[in-house]
C-alpha cells in the first residue's frame, strides 16, 4: 500500500514515520502541508513534531493547511489515518477526533519507554496486535494529557474507542490513562506514543511499535 506521511512546518518525526512505513512493508509517500493533494495514497500518517512551534496550541495552526482539507475528506470516506503525538493533536484540533491534549500534569516534556495496553485491535492500525497486548513504545511529549468531558469519555469507553492505555504510572495525567483513541468508524486513530521510534532493536525501545505499520496489510485483507 502507499502510505502518505505529511510534513508540516516543524514536523520532526516525518522521516522516522516514513522509515517505519517502509519497515512495515509499505511504500512511504511524502506529502507536503501546502499541497491540497494526497498523491493517490491509501492511508495517511500525521507525524510527530512541533508544527508551527506548537506555540499557540499543539496542532492548532496545522489543521488549516491545504493538505488537511484533503485528509479530512479522505478520513470521512474511510481512509485509514494515524496521527502520532503532534498528529494526534492535529486530529483533535480538526475535530476528526474528540477531546483535546493539554500540558502534562507535571508541566515537563517527558521522554521515556512507556508500557501500554492495546485495547482495541479492530482498527486498521492495530489489527496486528492481540487485544489486550502489552507493549512498550517510546513516549515523548510536553502536551500529551488527553482531556474530554465525562460524557465523551464514557462514550469512548462504551464504544470501545480507547485504542491504547498507559500501564503503570500515568506519565502525563491523561484522563482514564488514555494513550490513543479512534473515531466512530475506527479508521482514524490518534496516539500519543511514538510507534515509529519502536521499530528497530538498535535505535528505539525495541520493535513493539512495528505492528502499527504492519496492521495495514492485515486490515486490507481482513
Amino acid at each position, binding site marked *: 500500500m502507499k502510505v502518505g506521511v505529511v510534513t508540516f512546518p516543524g514536523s520532526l518525526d516525518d522521516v522516522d514515520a516514513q522509515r517505519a512505513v517502509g519497515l512495515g512493508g509499505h511504500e512511504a509517500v511524502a506529502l507536503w502541508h501546502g499541497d491540497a493533494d494526497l498523491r493517490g495514497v491509501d492511508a495517511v500518517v500525521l507525524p510527530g513534531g512541533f508544527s508551527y512551534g506548537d506555540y499557540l496550541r499543539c496542532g492548532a495552526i496545522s489543521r488549516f493547511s491545504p493538505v488537511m482539507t484533503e485528509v479530512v475528506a479522505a478520513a470521512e470516506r474511510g481512509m485509514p489515518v494515524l496521527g502520532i503525538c503532534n498528529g494526534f493533536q492535529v486530529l483533535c484540533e480538526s475535530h476528526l477526533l474528540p477531546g483535546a491534549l493539554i500540558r502534562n500534569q507535571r508541566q515537563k*516534556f517527558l521522554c521515556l519507554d512507556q508500557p501500554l495496553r492495546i485495547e482495541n485491535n479492530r482498527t486498521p492500525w492495530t489489527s496486528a496486535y492481540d487485544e489486550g497486548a502489552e507493549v512498550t513504545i517510546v513516549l515523548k511529549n510536553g502536551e500529551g494529557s488527553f482531556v474530554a468531558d465525562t460524557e465523551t469519555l464514557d462514550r469512548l469507553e462504551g464504544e470501545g474507542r480507547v485504542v491504547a492505555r498507559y500501564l503503570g504510572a500515568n506519565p502525563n495525567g491523561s484522563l482514564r490513562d488514555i494513550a490513543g483513541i479512534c473515531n466512530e468508524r475506527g479508521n482514524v486513530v490518534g496516539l500519543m506514543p511514538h510507534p515509529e521510534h519502536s521499530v528497530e532493536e538498535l535505535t528505539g525501545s525495541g520493535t513493539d511499535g512495528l505492528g502499527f505499520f504492519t496492521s495495514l496489510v492485515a486490515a486490507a485483507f481482513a
Partner: protein
Amino acid sequence: MPTPTTPTDALDTVEAALTDPDRVQPWAELGLKEDEYARIREILGRRPTSSELAMYSVMWSEHCSYKSTKVHLKQFGELAQETTAGKMLAGIGENAGVLDIGQGYAVTFKVESHNHPSFVEPYQGAATGVGGIVRDILAMGARPVAVMDPLRFGPLDADDTQRVLPGIVAGVGGYGNCLGLPNIGGEAVFDETYLGNPLVNALCVGVLRHEDLHLAKASGVGNQVVLYGARTGGDGIGGVSVLASETFDEGGPAKRPSVQVGDPFMEKLLIECTLELFAAGVVAGIQDLGGAGLSCATSELASAGDGGMHVHLDRVPLRDSTLSPEEVLMSESQERMMAVVEPDDVAAFLAICAKWDVEAAVVGEVTDTGRLEIDWHGRRVVDVPPRSVAHDGPTYERPYARPDWQDALQADVAEALPRPAGGEELRATLLRMVASPNLCDKSWITDQYDRYVRGGTVLAQPEDAGMVRVDEETGLGVAVATDCNGRFAKLDPYAGAQLALAESYRNVATAGATPLAVSDCLNFGSPEDPGVMWQFAEACRGLKDACATLRTPVTGGNVSLYNQTGDTAILPTPVVATLGVIEDVTQRTPSGFRPVADGTPGDEVFLLGE
C-alpha cells in the same frame, strides 16, 4: 509604537568623521582600551564613525577576538591536521572542524558556551546556546544530527540552583526537542564555585557528504549577499561586549534588553531551508549569525573572501524600526544566516526561502575594493578593511603565574582523609556517594530531552558516550563523549585537561568507536588574574601534549572567560569532547552488565588495568 528615527543629521557618517575629527567617542564604555582605540584610528587614518566603533568594539572583545587566549590556543594548530581516518576537511578557524569518516561522509562537531546569558535568564540563555551551536554546524553544509549539553551548577540544594537548573534544563530541552535533534548525552556537575556562574556548554554534531562542504567566505565580485531568517531586533545589544566579557558585578548600562529570546520553530525552518539551498547548489558562501551579529558575519565573510563587500544596512528587515545603524550591526537576534549567492541564483534562492516561510533580503554584494563598505539610507557609515575587524584584533600576552596556594592544595592529599572503618561506615559512605548529585542517576534531567527523534540514536543516556547512525545501509556511525573533572583541573590544570581528554577518549573507545578528534570548551575565570591565566595556559599545554600523544587533532572549540563571582573563579573547567567513528553501529558496546535472562547467559566481567 515610537516613530522611527531613520536618517537624521545625527547620523555619524564617514564624511562626518572627516569633517569632525575630534569628536569625543565612548570607546571606554564600549569596552575598548585606550591603545585599542588608538589602533583603530591608526588603521582608518581618522576617527571611526560610531558604527565602525561599534563593530570594532564588539569584534575586538574578548568573546570574539580571543585576545587573551590566542597565544595559547595557537599551539593546537601545531598538531597534525589529520586523523586516523584521513585528512581534516576543515580545521580551526572555520565555524567548526570537519572530519572525513569514510564512505564519502564527513562529520563536523563543536562545543560552545552560553554561560553568562544562562545565569541572567536560564531558559532563554540555554535555549539560544543550543540554537547558536546548531547554526555553526549548519553553516558548514552539514545536517545537524544530535546535541549534547555539558552543564555545571552550584550545589543542588542552593536557592539559586532552584532558579537556574530547571530553567536551563527546560531551555536545552525546549529548543533541542523543537528542532528535532536527539540529545545523546552531556554532563550535570555540581560545585560551590558554579553557584553564581553556572556553565551551559552545548555541543552539536552534523553530517555531510564531502562535496557538500561549505565555507564562510564572500568571493566572486558581483555576487549577492543575502540575509535570511528572523528579523533583526534589539536583542542582546551590548551582550557580546558587556555580557560575555565582563563579570556581572561590574554591571553596565543596557539601553536595550540584553536577553535574547529564541524561536526554535524559526530555526527548524532555517535548517530545512538551508539544507535545501545547499542541495539546489545556490550557496556560494555562508555564515551563521551568532555573537556580534552582522558585524561578525559581514567582516568575516568579506575578509575570508577575495575582495570587499558593500552592504545596504537599511535593507535589513527589522523587527523594531527604531534601531540605529550601530544597533543593527551589533544586534544578536537569533535564527539568522547570511549567504553569498551568484546573481543568477538569487531568484531560486529566494523561492526556496519563500517555500519555507523564511524571510530573505538581498542586503549587499561582493566587490573588489578590498573594503567593507556599509551604507545607511545611501550614506556611508562604515568603510574599513574587513580583516582589521575580523582577524587583526589585539593580542595580549597576559601575565600568568602559578598561584601561591597551589602547593598547599596539592599537599592536602586525599590519603590524609579518614577512611571508613568497618562495614557500617563503608555502607554509609557508599550510600552517601550514590545519593550525591554528582553521581546519582541523571534521568530526572535526561527524561526531559528527546533522545529518539531522527531514528538514528544508537546510544544515549545513561551510556558513557552518545552514538548515532550515519548511514542506514552500511551501519556507519559516530560516537561522542564530553568530560571534565574541574576538581582535578584545579589540583593540576595540566593533568586535569589531559584527564578530561583521556576520559572522553575512553568513553568513545569503550562504546566501540575509534576516537578521531576533539573539540573543547575552555571555561575559566578572569584572564586578568595571573593565577587563572596560569590555569588556562597549563590546561592548553596539557591538552595539546595529550592530543599529540593520542594523535587527535583539536578541530575547534570555544573559550569562556570571566566565569567568576566577585573574586572567586569557577573551578578551571576545560570540557573536552571526543568524536569517534564506528564502521558498524550494531557492533557498539553498551555499558552496564547484562544479567542472565531467559536462557541467555549473563555477561562475564573482567577488570582491565591496574
